[in-house]
């Protein structure tokens, strides 16, 4: 039984293709079920997030034919021409597939290094597949171990600590000033790409009240609707300053959108309650002199970018430690799998030798007929003992020595074992 994976992610495929091959949780289960129904795989889990769609499966042999079958199936499921996937799909087998999943769960393969969301997605996907009976001993072990890897990496390293983008760095600062944002209010001035990201971040962080203002009111209305906020007329935005605790600006233009004087007046009107100004505009939208005002915290893109860089360096320095944890668990899994495989190989070998002994004695039944039933019984007994004796030492070495276990697969070729547990002898001849 071999693990393999086939998939694409943010490194190999553009967002348009990723979107086309995305599986909703229900679709993922349906695709997995049909893959198993076709008999291509024994166990299967389809992991699909905004950055990846991957099929983890177990087959008798991860031969190319099976992988091609899974790929064809994926294309049919999403009605995508196979030629479109050229160079976008990756395939991993055995140890490489195991390592890939562990890296995914650890956040090492994420677009934002160390992000925590992926671990929850792996857990949900696995539990859903398990509930549907799509997993077996191999994928159960693999996915449970991947969850452990994810947890260990997050608790033993700082890889996932404070993963930041510019807007999320700004929100983190806001939380460091105000605590939970549910009792606070914010206004986003400018509904462009950066303003939209900031508005979504504010909503994600549970901001109490959110306004969006833009020179073009339609865009403000649209973004406000998307983020559950209220739109405000651009001309009225100055009035809002007296009410809100957080101001995000991302506006095109050469003049200050917010001058020191306007902010001083706003601070006076709001009784000097703390105000956090986030200037995401390039060139800047807020007069830097506003930072001198009492209880005003002003951060620009450069300040936030510095924080993001510092954060990224800190997390990158944790990558070797995270990778060591991944490799430790990959070794554990392959040891477990080769142990399980060796036990199964040994059982098949024992069956094979007994079967051959039966065939051998059946072919010589006339010669054996010269003996009395008791003598025949003793001869057959001795032959069975010989089989056990011959297998004892190799079995012990298989159990003890990992390298021997890894090479045990050659026994299958040597003795023509095909993974099908042929029924062994029902009992000794003559019984």
């Amino acid at each position, binding site marked *: 039984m071999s693990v393999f994976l086939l998939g694409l992610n943010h490194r190999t495929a553009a967002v348009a293709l990723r979107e086309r091959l995305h599986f909703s949780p229900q679709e993922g289960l349906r695709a997995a079920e049909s893959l198993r129904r076709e008999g291509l795989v024994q166990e299967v889990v389809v992991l699909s997030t905004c950055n990846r769609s991957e099929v983890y499966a177990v087959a008798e042999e991860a031969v190319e034919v099976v992988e091609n079958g899974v790929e064809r199936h994926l294309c049919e499921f999403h009605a995508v021409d196979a030629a479109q996937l050229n160079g976008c799909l990756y395939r991993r087998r055995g140890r490489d597939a195991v390592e890939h999943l562990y890296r995914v769960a650890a956040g090492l393969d994420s677009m934002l290094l160390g992000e925590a969301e992926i671990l929850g997605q792996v857990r949900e996907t696995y539990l859903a597949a398990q509930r549907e009976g799509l997993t077996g001993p191999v994928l159960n072990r693999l996915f449970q171990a991947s969850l452990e890897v994810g947890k260990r990496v997050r*608790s033993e390293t700082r890889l996932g*600590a*404070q993963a930041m983008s510019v807007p999320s760095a700004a929100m*983190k*600062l806001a*939380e*460091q*000033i*105000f*605590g939970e944002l549910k009792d606070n209010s914010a206004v986003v001035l400018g509904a462009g790409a950066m303003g939209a990201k900031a508005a979504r971040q504010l909503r994600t962080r549970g901001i109490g009240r959110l306004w969006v203002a833009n020179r073009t009111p339609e865009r403000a209305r649209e973004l406000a609707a998307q983020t559950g906020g209220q739109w405000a007329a651009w001309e009225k935005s100055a009035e809002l300053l007296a009410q809100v605790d957080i101001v995000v600006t991302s506006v095109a233009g050469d003049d200050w959108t917010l001058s020191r004087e306007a902010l001083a007046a706003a601070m*006076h009107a709001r*009784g*000097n*309650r*703390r105000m956090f100004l986030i200037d995401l505009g390039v060139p800047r939208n807020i007069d830097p002199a506003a*930072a001198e005002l*009492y*209880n005003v*915290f*002003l*951060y620009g893109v450069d*300040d936030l970018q510095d*924080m993001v860089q510092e954060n990224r360096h*800190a997390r990158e320095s944790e990558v070797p430690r995270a990778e060591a944890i991944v490799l430790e668990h990959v070794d554990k899994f392959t040891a477990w799998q080769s142990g399980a495989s060796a036990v199964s190989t040994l059982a098949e070998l024992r069956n094979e030798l007994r079967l051959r002994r039966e065939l051998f004695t059946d072919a010589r039944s006339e010669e054996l007929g010269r003996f009395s039933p008791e003598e025949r019984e003793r001869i057959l007994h001795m032959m069975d003992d010989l089989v056990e004796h011959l297998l004892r030492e190799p079995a012990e070495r298989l159990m003890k020595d990992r390298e021997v276990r890894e090479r045990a697969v050659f026994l299958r070729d040597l003795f023509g074992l095909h993974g099908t547990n042929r029924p062994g002898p029902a009992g000794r001849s003559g019984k």
Partner: protein
Amino acid sequence: MTAALYTASLAFYLHKLFGGGAWPGRAATALLAGGLVTHYMALLERAITLHSVPYQDFYGSMSLLAWFLALTYLGLELLHRERAMGAFVLPLVLLLLGLELVVVPQAAPKPPAHGSIFALHVTSNILAYSAFTLSFVYSVVYLVQDRLLRARRPGAVVWRLPPLDDLERMARSGVWVGLAGLLLGIGFGMMVDQQLHGQLLSLDSKVVVSFLILACYAVYLWSARSPAWRGARASVVCIASYFAVVFSYTVVNLYLSKFHRFF
């Protein structure tokens, strides 16, 4: 035993502060609670021997203050669900315990008064001092964080501290507890005074400084809500007010007061 529990608690608070995670914080709180229990037993034993609240000598006074500091901190930690400050408060508790340990306990002088009202007078006041100490610590941390954030240099430290709003609230809570303790202490003190001297209020220097402390912290509470002063300026007022507490607990106790010599 108590020192070991407090030290272990500090170790977990530090682990929580620098490493994060929920379990070190819970372990720290549990160890602190354990330390408070053993510390209380030790204080109780000494109180039974003295037939009074053990405050009269340096040993007893420091020990009582350390216990109240730890207790008040635990109360505020539970109230605000914020464990980051344990790493800043426990060193003070251990310092007070350390001071207590370097001084060999002596036979404490005979207390001038006995009884439950007197005991309440002493404990209310020490509770107030410990609460003011906490407010001082919170205000110092507030000021440092405020400076770092306004200078746009949060570095790695700021993320480990409670948000500014929370620190401000915790400092205010500490002050409210302190004021309540001090008012109660003064009230019980007046009752004791009535019993001992037949008058409600002796104008001892300790009493005068206590009213000064009340006034300082009243100014702080006003400034914390005043538009012009809220935030960092109010924290400076809180820190300055604490010097009046230290003055009261040291200089006044040692040299100025007739009736309030704690050690």
